[in-house]
């Protein structure tokens, strides 16, 4: 078996296949598939971003100027679906694909053909989802959460449900692949407690994915049968319960939130020690905190439902469980700061994004703690305060970590250094405009502006206009990012060294830049000094 596999690969032993179709569509190479994921994710970021621009344009001033309310609702639902399932999740899978084998000293992912399938399902899923915008009846307009009975009124429900099934299959296969790779393909000497934190974060995230994607699939399948096959899971007229959907959905939905942030924690835990030139503070605590957060994510789902009329005991339980999450999350933030303390820091673009992540994610965490308090959440719930909160944790959290990771590993991927000047221009514009965009939304929510409304009372006009201006400029700033990426990949004259960053540690920096098409075909001999966490017990 192993002999046959070696024989199979003999043809492309020395490089990538020449033909475009052979190389990209038939690829089983973790680096090429990682690249595909990342390009796909960037494309989706701009599609989802253009929906956000339309939303902010309509909300620029009171009165309806640009679109009918129904189209506005399609935009809010599609923006979320595209950003969550199309931009953030595939970006992390792409980073995992590229970096996990390099970080644990494996020649490729454990299941390369399944890896190809996991990726190539996604474009079809999104064509299906986005096509609903052009169909009579329009796209899903009941929010990304698709609460019944409202979502059952949508004519394109079947398209959305089938697209979500495909995304779920892709995610589960990706997760199986990552678990199999990490557990089976580590080079000898790469003990679990010596793995980079990014690898740990993905291992835990992959288990979350496998645990909860089936719950989502079940929930949306019940929607489908309620609409088309006469079942009454969520129809009170037939003895069903609309709230049941919310319980199942958020049993998926809350771990999903952590699926989108745990790999970001991993990334920050790679970047900060590199540029502080000091090992991460409390490696074991960092790993344990991630595991803790993952566990707690299963028992807090109803904090999304404090206003549905839960029994008092349930509200109290979910409030306490939710508040507990701030303890391991706090530990992570403290440890990042402690990693910087006593270091020797430089501030290249990845580090800037990591520092912005720590501050702005923490602000998102603070508002998260505030809304865990049920009586206060009775006011916050379903307002722009919530919108501000989850954009702080997902944009300045997850997205900033992904952008930081792209700057951090880009020289290893392309063999060229990106333009530090333009990287910093991108950073400063992003960090300023994202705050202009989202910070005023806290005030809007506290003053009483509900979310998902296309028009509002004039009292909300000032902050909405500021927010929209921030939104347009933040959106435009991301074009700089694309420019930096293209320049780095094709035009940069400055070659990257193998180590790239002075303080970088770990196996991925021991291979040449750009990373050859095949790496670690012979398992590397691990020298604990080379690893970031080679001497954890010291």
């Amino acid at each position: 078996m192993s002999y046959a596999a070696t024989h199979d690969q003999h043809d492309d032993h020395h490089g990538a296949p020449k033909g475009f179709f052979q190389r990209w569509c038939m690829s089983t190479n973790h680096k090429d598939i990682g690249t595909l994921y990342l390009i796909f994710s960037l494309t989706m970021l701009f599609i989802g971003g253009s929906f956000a621009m339309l939303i902010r344009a309509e909300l620029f001033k009171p009165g309806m100027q640009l679109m009918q309310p129904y189209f506005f609702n399609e935009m809010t639902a599609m923006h979320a679906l595209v950003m969550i399932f199309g931009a953030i999740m595939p970006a992390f899978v792409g980073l995992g694909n590229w970096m996990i084998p390099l970080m644990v000293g494996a020649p490729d992912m454990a299941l390369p053909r399944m890896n190809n399938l996991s990726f190539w399902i996604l474009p079809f899923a999104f064509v299906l989802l986005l096509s609903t915008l052009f169909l009579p009846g329009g796209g899903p307009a009941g929010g990304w959460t698709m609460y019944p009975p409202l979502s059952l009124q949508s004519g394109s429900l079947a398209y959305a449900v089938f697209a979500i099934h495909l995304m779920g299959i892709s995610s589960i296969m990706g997760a199986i692949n990552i678990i199999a790779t990490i557990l089976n393909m580590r080079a000898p000497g790469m003990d679990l407690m010596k793995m980079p934190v990014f690898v740990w974060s993905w291992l835990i995230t992959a288990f979350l994915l496998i645990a909860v994607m089936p719950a989502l699939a079940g929930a949306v399948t019940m929607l489908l049968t309620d609409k088309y096959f006469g079942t009454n899971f969520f129809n009170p007229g037939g003895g069903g319960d609309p709230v049941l959907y919310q319980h199942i959905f958020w049993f998926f939905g809350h771990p999903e939130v952590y699926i989108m942030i745990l790999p970001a924690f991993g990334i920050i835990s790679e970047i900060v020690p590199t540029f502080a030139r000091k090992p991460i503070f409390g490696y074991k605590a960092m790993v344990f905190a991630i595991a803790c957060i993952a566990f707690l994510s299963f028992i807090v789902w109803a904090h999304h439902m404090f206003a549905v009329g839960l029994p008092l005991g349930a509200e109290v339980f979910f409030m306490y469980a939710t508040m507990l999450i701030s303890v391991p999350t706090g530990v992570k933030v403290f440890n990042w700061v402690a990693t910087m303390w006593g270091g020797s820091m430089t501030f290249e673009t990845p580090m800037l994004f990591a520092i912005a992540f720590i501050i702005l994610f923490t602000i998102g965490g603070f508002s998260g703690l505030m809304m865990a308090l049920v009586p206060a959440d009775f006011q916050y719930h379903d307002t722009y305060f919530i919108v501000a909160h989850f954009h702080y944790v997902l944009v300045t959290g997850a997205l900033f970590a992904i952008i930081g990771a792209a700057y951090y590993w880009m020289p290893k991927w392309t063999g060229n250094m990106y333009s530090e000047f333009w990287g910093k221009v991108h950073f400063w514009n992003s960090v300023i405009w994202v705050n202009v965009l989202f910070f005023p939304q806290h005030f809007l929510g506290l003053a009483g502006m509900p979310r998902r409304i296309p028009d509002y009372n004039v009292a909300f006009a000032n902050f909405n206009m500021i927010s929209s201006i921030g939104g347009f400029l933040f959106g435009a700033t991301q074009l700089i990012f694309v420019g930096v990426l293209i320049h780095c990949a094709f035009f940069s004259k400055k070659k990257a060294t193998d180590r790239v960053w002075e303080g970088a540690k770990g196996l991925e920096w021991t291979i040449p830049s750009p990373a050859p098409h095949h790496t670690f075909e012979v398992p590397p001999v691990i020298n604990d000094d080379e690893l970031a966490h080679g001497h954890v017990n010291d």
Partner: protein
Amino acid sequence: MTSGGIRRSFTAAAALALASFGSAALAAPGPWQLNMERGASTWSPVPYHLNNVALGVCTVIGVLVFSAMFIAIFRFRKSRGAVAEKWSHNTTVEVVWTTIPVLILITLAYLATSGLTSWADTTGSQMTVKVTGYQWKWRYDYVDYLGKSIDKVGFMSKLDSRSDRTRQLGSGMDPFAVKVGDENTYLLDVDKPLVVPVDTKIRFVITSGDVIHSWWVPATGWKIDAIPGIINAAWANFTTPGTYRGQCAELCGQDHGFMPIVVEVKSKADFAKWLAEQEASSKAPAAAAQTAQVAAPVAGKQG
């Protein structure tokens, strides 16, 4: 027209922003409002104070953590010749910064739990109003008041016609011009408000006739979902007469943004008078009430 509106609001902005941060009862949101309102019911200060305490706690922690980080950023930079130290572990500080947050959380949990239990207690109410959400209007039915059941007082309440005309795509009408007195009521006014008495514990029983809505008047301090097949209960005891505005807070379809809620709190005497009038008109010509009910959706379609 918008810039005119901004200029107008700029004049009052600074004073209003300051006033609104620690403000008294607000009947409706104000421009540049920064913080939650205190509300106008006996319970509504609970979320307001909890919000302020939690915000204060978060601000203090944030200042401490971010200061430590900025000190690190300035002291331990390579350009200043900082040499990286080797330590990566310190059990004492790790135990300390795990324990202190737990203690803070216990305090917050205590405050929140006592506030929540008082909210959940709907017993001893002196009045019951049934609220039903529809796409996209509310229906109010008066069930009982001071121990007596109320006969056939109920009506639909939907967006006022001026807001409704203004909010149409390409109407060319100015949202800043929709006013009642000095107050701008664009999208926050209805044709027929819910009328309730002051200083009365009112139990709201809330449900829906189609999809899920959420009944939210910020002055009460809470919102609760209106769900088909389920009857939720909550209570409010308004302390000051006045007009309090809110909106549907759960996405319920295309006109989700256009189903406001207005509660008019009257003195007990005025309310008794109002209620008597309503009961009389519902009894006298039975047809009148019926036409009113039929007329509401029809008018909605014309608007």
